[in-house]
């Protein structure tokens, strides 16, 4: 199942990221993972939060340009060589990765990798077939 990621357009100027986090704090939204892709002029902030719909609405009302994007999460063992076979499985299935970022869960010895791919459904099938756990969205938001 796809995980709902909230993406925010940010100009590269001071205080913009702080403004986003302040707004989420006010709404009681907890950030589970985040990553920024940036160029010299602008950045795209990607967020996994505990309440994606509420975060989307709050940011939109706060005047930000936001989009809800589907990504998928895969749990990989937190040890050398943990990620490589997962990516190999996607490669074998001919799936392109647009971007990915990861965070390490506190419990268990596993890392959670978030992937934006060109075909989410097929990617999930390939990973599951290769023996990887693809957590339900609720599990990801609650980590």
């Amino acid at each position, binding site marked *: 199942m796809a995980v709902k990621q909230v993406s925010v357009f940010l100009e590269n100027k001071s205080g913009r990221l702080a403004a986003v986090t302040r707004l989420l704090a006010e709404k009681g939204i907890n950030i589970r993972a985040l990553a920024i892709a940036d*160029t010299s002029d602008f950045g795209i902030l990607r967020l996994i939060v505990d309440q994606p719909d509420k975060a989307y609405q709050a940011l939109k009302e706060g005047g930000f340009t936001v989009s809800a994007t589907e990504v998928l999460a895969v749990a990989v063992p937190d040890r050398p060589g943990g990620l490589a076979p997962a990516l190999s499985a996607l490669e074998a299935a001919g799936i392109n990765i647009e971007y990915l970022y990861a965070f390490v869960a506190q419990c268990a010895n596993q890392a959670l990798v978030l992937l934006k791919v060109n075909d989410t459904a097929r990617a999930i099938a390939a990973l599951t077939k290769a023996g990887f756990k693809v957590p339900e969205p609720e599990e990801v938001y609650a980590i």
Partner: protein
Amino acid sequence: MWNPAVETMPREQLRELQLQRLKETVRRAYEKVPFYREKFKAIGLEPGDIKSLDDLARLPFTFKDDLRNNYPFGLFAAPLKEIVRIHASSGTTGKPTVVGYTREDIATWAEVVARTLGSVNTTPDDVVQVAYGYGLFTGGLGLHYGAEKLGATVIPISGGNTKRQIMLMQDFGTTVLCCTPSYALYIAEVLRESGIPRESLRLRAGLFGAEPWSENMRREIEEKLKIDAIDIYGLSEIIGPGVASECLCKNGLHICEDHFIPEIIDPATGKVLPPGEQGELVFTTITKQGFPVIRYRTRDISRLIDEPCPCGRTHIRMARVTGRTDDMLIIRGVNVFPTQIESVLLSIGQTEPHYLLVVDREKSLDTLEVWVEVSEALFRDEVKGLEELERRIHDEIESVLGISVKVKLVEPKTIQRSEGKAKRVWDKRDLLK
């Protein structure tokens, strides 16, 4: 149509009327305004020399500077006791330009604005929301008197306070909206953000003027507000709104030729150009009593369309104004009109662009940055998607203008919203003086 007898008058008859009125106006200006008398004398011209409409081209031009130099009442052709109203420009680029109206002029003005409203079949059953500014600016009171003359119900709300504008539109059942086109888009934006259903409005038409706008912007407004959006034209020096307006054919603005004679000239040489050719619009008023102007240089770029219009009106049309000779940017020798860039943005975004042109000079070379707000429709979650967007805007502007610009994507609300004329250009070069 408000006044079919005049608006569909056979052209030959119209020309006779124009000639008779032109003669009267030239005589009035000569007799009552020393400025005109001196100018005529300087070229050896007497009022009696005007024998045909072709003689119009012999008359000298009047410039905005002439109005400033005769500040405040030097060009009035009636004593102040006969002047019942004064309007003036904001004076942002110097002394304001001041114009005066006799009681008869106010009646003329109401008549031509009633025709403008009649262009969208406004009747006494309509509720007209006048969201142009009231006061010294001619927009608000101009539309107001025209709508009253026509017998419509007027809401004199003036500009600004958009939420309230929308509330009154709902509560009073506004059918016709009058404001600047950029403000109409802003109203549409606030309407959408407020989640107010379009069905709760009775709005059916909009009369938009006071700034140049594009065909794409019309489509945008019509789609968003689900109305007929027509272009209206006027300027205080001539009378205010009511000089010209589109009919529902939306293909050029009929000029009230029984009150104003239009010409298109080459702005560089002053030579009169034939219909169809683009140039600077020049007007001569032929019924104004308090403030007649002869061959006023508007600085607006347009062309005249003399083919018959399917609506039946016989008065000549002017094409929508594409820019002004004085807001025209010259970037590295290339003429750039903000509306050209607006058209490109609209064609890419399918949505109203909030944009700003930032002009600067680096090492004596002009630079043009186009700031574009990233709307949800334009936003991509991937850097390459946004870079593609930048490249597309860049390439299309380059293909239209022939110059390379820097495109900068900015966050929503970065660019100041306008409740009057949109500010599209930030020319930093002026600050270097």
